[in-house]
């Protein structure tokens, strides 16, 4: 049933990480088990601890930001790195252990079934829905509704950072308008508007092994504000005036 080995070889996995030295080892081992032969890069987003050294010890390639740039920027560095490799499919997951690498094959299967961007959802199966605060639940439901309506695909977990995508989507996300803080609902809608086929699969999410969530406190309020602004500007917004990412994407595509 498992795909041929050359298909596994064509998979790259990127793992943005910041101060996850205690948790990233287990995550990388899990990736190795779920996708043997895949090239794995950890993007160390200016960690203060040994995240980079631990990742290297567990066989990953490490790209280090000189200082903290944000989750989205780390993902994008991963996209740029990936575009310099031979690959057909890219998987991204978080380093804190919430995303169980065992779900990688089901994400890849959804890509093979014709989707170009696959989201790993926590909420597709109500039985496994994790407990969160009321504010987050309301926000989450709201953005799930907006994204589902706008993209025409039922999306239950638009903020999920557990994703798989094909090369064309990576090339698109390598461009300069990729947000450095919260790349989720707005990116999904922008992609859907450009004709990218989305899909969602249920993934196993574990309780955080430690560390702190990105979405908390005042950040949630800012998140809501930012999403509403970017979403309402989406149809009329100009593309980024910068061309750095476009050049990188093109250089990688050659």
């Amino acid at each position, binding site marked *: 049933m498992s795909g041929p080995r050359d298909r596994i070889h064509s998979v790259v996995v990127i793992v943005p990480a910041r101060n996850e030295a205690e948790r990233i080892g287990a995550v990388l081992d899990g990736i190795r088990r779920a996708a043997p032969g895949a090239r794995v890069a950890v993007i160390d987003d200016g960690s203060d601890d040994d995240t980079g050294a631990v990742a290297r010890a567990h066989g990953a390639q490490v*790209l280090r*930001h000189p*200082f903290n*740039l944000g989750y989205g*920027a780390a993902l994008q*560095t991963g996209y740029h*790195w990936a575009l*310099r490799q*031979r690959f057909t499919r890219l998987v991204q997951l978080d380093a804190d252990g919430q995303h169980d690498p065992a779900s990688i094959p089901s994400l890849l299967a959804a890509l093979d079934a014709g989707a170009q961007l696959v989201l790993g959802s926590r909420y597709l199966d109500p039985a496994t829905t994790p407990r969160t605060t009321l504010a987050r639940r309301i926000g989450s439901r709201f953005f799930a509704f907006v994204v589902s309506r706008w993209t025409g695909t039922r999306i239950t977990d638009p903020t999920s950072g557990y994703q798989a995508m094909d090369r064309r989507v990576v090339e698109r996300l390598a461009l300069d308008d990729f947000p450095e803080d919260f790349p989720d609902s707005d990116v999904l809608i922008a992609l859907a508007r450009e004709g990218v086929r989305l899909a969602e699969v249920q993934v196993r999410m574990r309780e955080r092994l430690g560390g702190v969530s990105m979405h908390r406190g005042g950040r949630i309020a800012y998140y809501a504000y930012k999403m509403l602004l970017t979403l309402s500007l989406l149809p009329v917004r100009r593309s980024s005036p910068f061309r750095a990412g476009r050049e990188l994407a093109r250089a990688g595509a050659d």
Partner: protein
Amino acid sequence: MLSFGPILQELQGPTLPKLVDGLPGHQKTVAIVLSIAMFLVVVELVRKRKLREEYSLVWMLTAFALLVLAIQHRLLNVVRDLVGAVEPTSALFFGALVFLMLLSLQFSVRLSKLTFRNRTLSQRVALLEDEIDSLRADKGATDRTTSEPRDGDAGAA
């Protein structure tokens, strides 16, 4: 005896304030001194190369506007009527506020640009370091096997 004066006045509402013409002498002096000081500080900062010429422009304009309005009270009266102020001093403050707001906005735009450039640079540094590492690793590997250097196939396709 009842006096209707105060009651009538109350019914009429507060008397319209008399429009003040120009700046009172003392305030005028302060405004002029302030604008000249501002001008000198900006020139000095540019001389010491602590302030870029492009950023000095808005500051110079602010100082100049302050000076002109302080001296030309007729112009200040126009501004006063334009913004609906009573005191020319308020008009002057209002003008200064608008300038400062424009300045802050300009800074926010610059900051956005700098933030983006900073991010792109850092991302490139990370990618280049990775490339250097893999080139070094490749070189180490070939040095161990042969003494001949391989001809530049180390980069990824």
